[in-house]
């Protein structure tokens, strides 16, 4: 009896110790500089999800340990921190990432170390079009935003379009995707002006007057963060929003934009964000908003919800894989036509080929109400996920 008891005890002990060991997730967010507000929201969303998962007993009986680091929105810093997380902190997964350039720089590490990366904000379509086996994106990307905008724009009774966007990859690619798609849907539209202020500009006056002079009926814009805050304030002073019939911005409904604009936000802008906290009107969403407010004292921005949903979706994949091993998790994400998760914002479906999640998108017109210190969306228009499913070159 003695002969086999001791090894059994040892094995049991090891198994127990293993099950107690946390699943380590290294999260990269931009926590300093001009976009620190977005990183803060994202890290808070992930934190809330980790707390919820741990409260119900963790994943595979193991708690989630979230390690949040600041990538400063800088690819070099992002790579350095990601490497440190993998080699020193021994994380099982990389997570988060706000900036597209950081995500593209970090992505090769997933092959090098076989550590999966789940991206929840960075939106360049190129990230998933690289078809890397261990890169997943649980938020929608800029091409989907542009396609959704085009689907909506095609229904508007206007032909003369113009663009004002930040002069870097995101702004340029978004406009290309938007106008190409819109011309497919509505061959009669024409482009009357394109304005490209530097990303991070603080003075838009000459761009606004030049834009107005072209007399567009509708303007598409991907100005975001402080750029959109400052542009909207200056454009309003020029009476710009009274001179164009539609102003569309797929990232304009971010609380990081509407919050600072406060009661000064122009009304009637047709804006979206990857999540809007008042939609959908479901128990699931209301419970999330309530929990988030209770925990952090503010409304969840889109980035908070995307990180929250992303971590839950990753936990779902780990559970399904019964393992944290990269290939098993990859198979879990891809199996059965792609992992589906019911997030507060609605159904997220991961396309197995390119590991890109698709979801319905909510648009609406800005409107002030007595209930909120900032503009909210009214006359909401829902663009179904099927309108955003663009072809991919990835194959599995």
């Amino acid at each position, binding site marked *: 009896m003695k002969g086999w008891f001791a090894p059994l005890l040892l094995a049991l002990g090891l198994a127990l110790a293993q099950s107690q060991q946390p699943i380590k997730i290294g999260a990269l967010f931009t926590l*300093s500089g001009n976009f620190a507000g977005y990183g803060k929201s994202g890290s808070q969303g992930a934190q809330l999800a980790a707390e919820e998962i741990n409260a119900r007993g963790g994943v595979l009986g193991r708690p989630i340990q979230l390690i949040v680091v600041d990538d400063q929105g800088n690819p070099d810093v992002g790579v350095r921190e990601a490497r440190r997380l993998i080699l020193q902190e021994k994380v099982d997964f990389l997570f988060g990432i706000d900036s597209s350039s950081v995500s593209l720089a970090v992505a090769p590490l997933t092959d090098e170390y076989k550590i999966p990366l789940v991206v929840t904000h960075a939106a360049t379509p190129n990230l998933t079009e690289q078809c890397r086996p261990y890169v997943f994106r649980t938020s929608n990307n800029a091409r989907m935003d542009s396609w959704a905008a085009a689907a909506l724009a095609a229904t508007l009774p206007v032909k003369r379009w113009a663009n004002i966007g930040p002069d870097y990859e995101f702004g340029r690619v978004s406009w290309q995707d938007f106008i190409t798609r819109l011309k497919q849907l509505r061959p009669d539209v024409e482009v009357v002006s394109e304005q490209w202020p530097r990303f991070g500009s603080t003075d838009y006056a000459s761009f606004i007057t030049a834009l107005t002079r072209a007399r567009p009926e509708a303007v598409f814009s991907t100005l975001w963060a402080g750029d959109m805050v400052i542009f909207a304030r200056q454009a309003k002073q020029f009476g710009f929003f009274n001179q164009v019939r539609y102003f569309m911005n797929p990232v304009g409904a971010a609380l990081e934009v509407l919050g600072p604009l406060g009661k000064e936000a122009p009304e009637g802008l047709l804006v979206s964000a990857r999540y809007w906290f008042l939609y959908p009107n479901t128990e699931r969403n209301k419970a999330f908003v309530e929990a988030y407010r209770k925990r952090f004292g503010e409304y969840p921005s889109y980035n908070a919800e995307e990180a929250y949903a992303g971590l839950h979706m990753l936990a779902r994949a780990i559970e399904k894989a019964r393992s944290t091993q990269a290939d098993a998790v990859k198979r879990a994400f891809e199996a059965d036509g792609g992992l589906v998760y019911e997030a507060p914002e609605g159904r997220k479906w991961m396309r197995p080929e390119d590991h890109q999640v698709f979801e319905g998108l909510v648009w609406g017109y800005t409107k002030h109400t007595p209930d909120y210190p900032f503009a909210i969306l009214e006359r909401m228009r829902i663009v179904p996920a099927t309108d955003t499913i663009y072809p991919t070159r990835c194959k599995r």
Partner: protein
Amino acid sequence: MDLGFYALQLLTGLAYASTLFLLSVGLSLIFGAMGIVNFAHGSFYMLGAYFLYAFTRGQADGFWGGLLLVLATGFVIGAFVERIFIRRVYARPEEYQILLTYALLLIIEDLVRFFFGTGYRAFPMPQAFAGPLFLFGTPFPSYYLFLIGLAAISALLLGLFLYRTRLGAWIRAATQDREMLEALGVNVPLLYTVVFGMGIALAALGGAALLPMQAATPGMAVDAVINAFIVVVIGGLASVWGALLGAVLIGLVQALGVLFLPEWAMVFPFALMALVLLLRPWGLLGRPPAVRT
């Protein structure tokens, strides 16, 4: 109609130039008189914006009082920083001033983040400027005219001060020969405190005056100081008029550039700077470096 439009476009360029002038003139003044390259200049510009927000609690009706208070606070802080920190590096190699002012930039950014948070702070348009003016039948923000006026008055007062007062004469003398000035019995350390205070006060005023058209964020300091350096490199680093000329050139090139080459809007200020560096490396109104014997 078209002539009116070009006039309007010129006006937007001048408005942008005004903001650049208020931002960079202090940098020029401080370098000219003291030989200090102040990397933290943009940070004081940012502090001006945040102070206006704090003094008025974000309410537009406190705008005018807040502006004066920012000017005064800017001077006091500038004088304080000169006494406590800057003074210690005059006698040391230039690397020390770069290290010191860069450290100030980082410290101030973190302080602002600590006290005001990471988000954007917007300030409502003061009542006096709430409605747009109509110029050539087009709405034009009256606040831009105020900015142009503020920059013009600042330039005028600064010119009068530098060329019509004894203190101004001393400051100009300091740019030429510090030892001689000291030998003539002028309290140069005190003079430096005053110059630094003035430069910082102007930067803070600029930041505050811009707040109603822009938004304050902890990251704005770095962007601001880069813009300020572009302006003074074009205009000439040690010259107040250089800052004015540099600002106006950038403003106009930007405003007219977006009309004819909108694809290249981002390139204009840098192209202008590169051109100046090639043809007159010391800036349009700067002095070529004297050959020391």
